[in-house]
């Protein structure tokens, strides 16, 4: 289990991460979502011991990242953003180097190598120079490097950035597979990516966690009112604007008229569905309904709202 408490990081006078707290349980795949520069990478760098927090605590079970850095690093597999690799090395040499530092040598290394070749699909490239591998393969090499010691915890920083759609599907499948046995914490700035892979989403904006929950929880917590778009003919404007007097749950938002067609926007609460009442009201007032489309907030709208709202405050 990972427990982060009041974690902050300042770069000079810039507060990159502002007192964030969260927990991740074993066996969970958690997505860390935020716009570029929101503080995701800084948080991950602190969790892996690459950066020292300005304040706050990061605990892995009973170990603390400040006092037990190496003990924690033994349990973590980390794929950094941009996946830096030694291009002049062969794939197995690179994995052997990392395994060596983790004291996995000889027969143990051979077993670990076979395992990651199998899990990451590296069979055809093991003896190739890393520089000669495609970007998709390099990403797999990065993942294999993070997994060579079979860690309990995988921390992946933007694992699918720069990959083509087929490669994204492959890596996503791999991460899901790994998540069955390991705690996976992955960051991304692409909502669809996170949504398709993880059990739980945390959204970070300007160094603060603004949402934390499953897709469904986020939807129910952050979903705003439903916007209903209607196209009608023959409606008297006053019957449109004063609709709330007859249908209290519906609020008039806007009206545009072009070529005798009136495009109206109404708004109502997410737990209500006043479309039947609206239909009856339209019939009573001799509107001809051409179209009626409710627009509910999706996760993308929530993400955009959460990550732009604070921008305007700042």
């Amino acid at each position, binding site marked *: 289990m990972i427990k982060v408490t009041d974690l902050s990081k300042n770069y000079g006078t810039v507060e990159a991460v502002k007192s964030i707290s969260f927990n991740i349980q074993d066996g969970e795949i958690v997505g860390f979502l935020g716009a570029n520069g929101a503080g995701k990478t800084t948080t991950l760098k602190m969790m892996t011991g690459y*950066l020292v927090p300005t304040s706050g605590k990061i605990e892995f079970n009973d170990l603390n990242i400040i006092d037990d850095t190496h003990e924690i690093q033994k349990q973590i597999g*980390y794929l950094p953003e941009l996946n830096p690799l030694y291009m002049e090395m062969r794939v197995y040499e690179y994995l052997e180097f990392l395994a060596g530092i983790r004291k996995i040598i000889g027969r143990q290394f051979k077993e670990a190598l076979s395992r990651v070749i199998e899990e990451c699909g590296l069979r055809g490239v093991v003896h190739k120079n890393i520089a000669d591998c495609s970007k998709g393969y390099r990403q797999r090499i990065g993942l294999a490097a993070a997994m060579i010691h079979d860690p309990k915890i995988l921390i992946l920083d933007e694992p699918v950035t720069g990959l083509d759609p087929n490669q994204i599907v492959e890596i996503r499948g791999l991460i899901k597979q790994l998540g069955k046995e390991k705690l996976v914490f992955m960051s991304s700035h692409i909502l669809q990516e996170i949504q398709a892979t993880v059990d739980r989403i945390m959204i970070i904006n300007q160094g603060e966690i603004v949402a934390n929950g499953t897709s469904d929880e986020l939807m129910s917590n952050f979903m705003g009112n439903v916007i209903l778009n209607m196209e009608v003919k023959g409606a008297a404007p006053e019957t449109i604007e004063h609709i709330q007097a007859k249908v209290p749950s519906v609020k008039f938002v806007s009206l545009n008229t072009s070529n005798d067609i009136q495009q109206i926007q109404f708004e109502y609460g997410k737990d209500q569905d006043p479309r039947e009442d609206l239909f009856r009201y339209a019939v009573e007032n001799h509107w001809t309904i051409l179209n009626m489309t409710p627009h509910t907030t999706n996760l993308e709208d929530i993400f955009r709202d959460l990550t732009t709202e604070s921008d305007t405050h700042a």
Partner: protein
Amino acid sequence: MHNIRIIYKRELDGYFNSPMAYIFLVIFAVVNGYFFTNTFFLFGQSDLRMLFDIVPLVYLFFIPAVSMGLIAKENNIGTMETISTLPLNTYEFVIGKFLAGFFLILIGLGATAIHFITLASVGTNVDYGAIFSGYLGLALMGAMYTAVGTYASSVTDNQVVAFIIGVFLVLVFYMLDKTLVFVPHSIAGIIQFLAVDYHLSNISRGVIDSRNLIYFFSVIGFFIFLTIQTLEVRRWK
């Protein structure tokens, strides 16, 4: 020790998997060979003094070039992040890097043995003791400059900048005793003690004094310590 060996081996493989090591070694051998043989048969003296004079000059540029990428390259391509998140002590990383750079210098120095073989075969009354101590002095100087170069490589992400800083720092050590006539008498002793030439010339004369050895090992230790501190401080920034 295990991790130092792994870092050392990777770095050395890195040198020899690219053309870099070969280019450096060929240039080192050609430059030293040219200046040595130019005057060797002319003077007709059975010693390697000319070689021992020219190598410190070639070192001034050769060693910062060998060491410029040791850490700056890791910072530049981002592999420093991978390294820093491994269960590896910073001192193991720095010493492994330093030893790899130093080993390449020793190979370069070893290649000059061809001149020693020439001398041994055509010379008379060869003073083998002086040649041994001369090589020892050059090896110590090489180790010291590699430590300085490793430090220069740790303060920047840019190899060219690391090279320039490295050349500047080794030049300071090299030039110190040339400035003795300009400094007050009271500090001349300290300046002389800090100058690398003073200690090298002592050892090259065949006097292996513990003060000279302490000087070399202290400077090497000091710059390795500075490098470790530089890398540690980066984590706190």
